[in-house]
């Protein structure tokens, strides 16, 4: 039996090869993650020595801070609408682009492009689209006799505006759906045709089950991404310069934006770490629920339902 030392000698090259990634993971991912657990139990301004305060950050977040509730509500609203809308739209686009027509690859590229465009640039573009007086959206609404709202300046319409904007980036999900659609064996549709199935039946009983793993993947990824919505709110919602992000009246103060403000504007690193862990737990719970529910509707060819 080779002893431990000889095994190490035999394997050292392997360890050497994985070391760049492994060291990077320890230093830049695992280390900060573990550190943030510790920090969440401290008061730390980045410059001072962290001061151990036990569960004070968590109790303040859960019991006393009114903006936590507000930011959670804003985030939940965003997730609730942007995730289903994003999935429906990306599926609809994928179905449209899954046709055998000339020039289809150009359309696929065009629809995919926004999802690889820099989000800050996209946000600035959309600020103009939502401009109440000169914006494209209200101009179009005016053409059909509708007086457009104030969008980002309205407490009521600011979140719907950001949800609408999020649909601009459905190209990523669309590509995954498209790949899944193209993986469905043609024989299944041929068999259904022989049985006299109509389009809607084929969609419901063949297409949806066959692409359900892709739908599930998009659902999970969109949900996690939506819980972490930040950039567009940070860029588009400052009413009067730095520090006022989340306006009007905190209607776009999403959880991660609030976390950012606590960490990098107020330098409450311990508090922000606690916020981050609470968000992690929320996302974890919803992800586990989704995995549990997926057993009932996600179909894997290799092993039936998950």
């Amino acid at each position: 039996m080779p002893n431990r030392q000889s095994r190490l000698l035999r394997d050292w090259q392997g360890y050497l090869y994985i070391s760049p990634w492994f060291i990077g993971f320890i230093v830049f991912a695992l280390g900060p993650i573990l550190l943030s657990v510790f920090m969440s139990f401290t008061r730390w301004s980045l410059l001072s020595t962290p001061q151990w305060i036990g569960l004070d950050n968590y109790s303040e977040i859960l019991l006393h801070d009114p903006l936590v509730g507000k930011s959670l509500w804003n985030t939940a609203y965003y997730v609730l609408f942007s995730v289903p809308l994003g999935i429906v739209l990306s599926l609809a686009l994928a179905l449209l682009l899954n046709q055998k027509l000339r020039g289809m690859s150009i359309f696929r590229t065009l629809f995919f492009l926004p999802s690889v465009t820099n989000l800050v640039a996209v946000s600035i573009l959309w600020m103009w689209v939502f401009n109440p007086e000169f914006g494209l959206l209200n101009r179009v609404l005016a053409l059909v006799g509708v007086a457009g709202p104030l969008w980002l300046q309205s407490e009521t319409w600011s979140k719907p505006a950001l949800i609408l904007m999020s649909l601009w980036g459905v190209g990523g999900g669309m590509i995954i759906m498209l790949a899944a659609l193209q993986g469905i064996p043609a024989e299944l549709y041929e068999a259904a045709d022989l049985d006299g199935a109509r389009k809607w039946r084929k969609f419901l009983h063949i297409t949806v089950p066959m692409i359900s793993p892709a739908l599930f993947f998009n659902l999970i990824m969109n949900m996690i991404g939506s819980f972490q919505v930040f950039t567009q709110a940070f860029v588009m919602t400052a009413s009067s310069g730095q520090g006022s992000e989340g306006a009007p009246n905190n209607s776009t103060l999403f959880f991660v934006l609030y976390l950012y403000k606590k960490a990098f504007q107020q330098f409450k690193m311990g508090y922000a770490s606690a916020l981050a862990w609470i968000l992690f737990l929320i996302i974890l719970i919803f992800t586990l629920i989704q995995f549990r529910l997926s057993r009932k509707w996600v179909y894997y060819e290799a092993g039936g339902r998950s």
Partner: protein
Amino acid sequence: MKKTMLFAAVLVVLATLTMLGCGSDNDSITLTFNVPANANQIRLLREDLSQFEERFGARVKLFPFTGQEKLYAMMAAGQAPDIFYTNTVVRDQLAAEGRLLDLYSVAEGDSFIHRIRPEFVQRGTSIDGGWYQFCDWTFTYAVYYNKILFERAGLAEPALDWNWSDLVRSAKALTVDADSDGSPEQYGIFIAKHFAAALEQMNGARFQRNALFFSLSDESRQALQAYLDLMNRHHVMPDVSLTQAQGMQMTQLLNSGRTAMAVEALPNPDVIAGLKIDWDVAPLPRMGDNPPAYFRSASGGLSISAGCPHPDIAWEFLKWLITESRYNTPNPILRDVDFVGDWEKTYPVLAQTRFGEVWRLSEQYDGGDPRDFVRYSSWSSAAILEILAPKMDLLFSGKIDVDQLAAAEADINRNVERELLKLQQSALDSVFLQQIKSEINARRGEENADR
């Protein structure tokens, strides 16, 4: 095996080179300067730096960035620049944590101090009496107006001692709603939200700088109401929230004839370059019977790191910056500089306006800087603004009135007190902690007396 040996040898050589590269050039003095300036100022500074470097045998490395996040990260990593920009909100906190050099320690005995207008030394001084911030610039606010529109309306241009009633009267005469649809094509005036604090000051509100608690005096309430009345009662100002949200610049509003008057900073090179109309300036109008108290900015400045190894050279650099370099010169914080004359030489259009008179009024009746980041202390600013800012959004969009804003005072101050109590266990300098404690006690005393 040979390959492995070769690989190991290359690694050793690379590691050695890296270690050698980490050495510092100890034989020369290097100052690091976080310069919060625009590209043009930085270009001028780079061109001029060699003068300073030759005279003092020091090298100056520029770190051009704005914002506190990067500065804090550099400090936390032990790499703070020797000289950096601090706003008033972070200044006291950094001073209390011993991170800023008391400028008196290098400037005491230097006759240069007497060249600085004393109010700017005072504005950079913290509650422990230390001078931590070199306020290196100031500006005032003025009402810019379109002379042609005044002439067309048959109005006399604003007098230097005009008052709020004069402004409202002029604004009404300058507001044009030709098709009477209730949405004027030309408004009399535009005053952005962030200038409202200057109106409070003009109405006699006096602010304790770096106050720990929030309060809204009667003078402030009246001024805010007068400001809101411009939109809601007199209909002489466009919806401020909407106009600002649209990103409309004051120069666009004036150039397009959308408004006849607008408040902006003076002097302001961007405005001077951007205005394409026949324009002039007037001071902010007096409100009520109050003596004028014109806005003079003092919201930040340059600080020297407590860890700077060459504080004397850093001090010389600050002096050189505002006297000899083309960065922020001619500088209005110096007594012996002909600021107005020099600016008029640089921007000849100013000589045809009342810039000089408005500027001198601001010097004579200096009301200071009442903006949020000067008004509230390092320790309570965030606690105040996270409740106050959304309320201000609601106020300016007409969802709440001034009384409802004032009613938030108790709520805001409870939030502040909760934050301040956390400081009791912190490692702040005792002078600061003592000062904070005494303010909390004074406030509690006042509350008890009120009951």
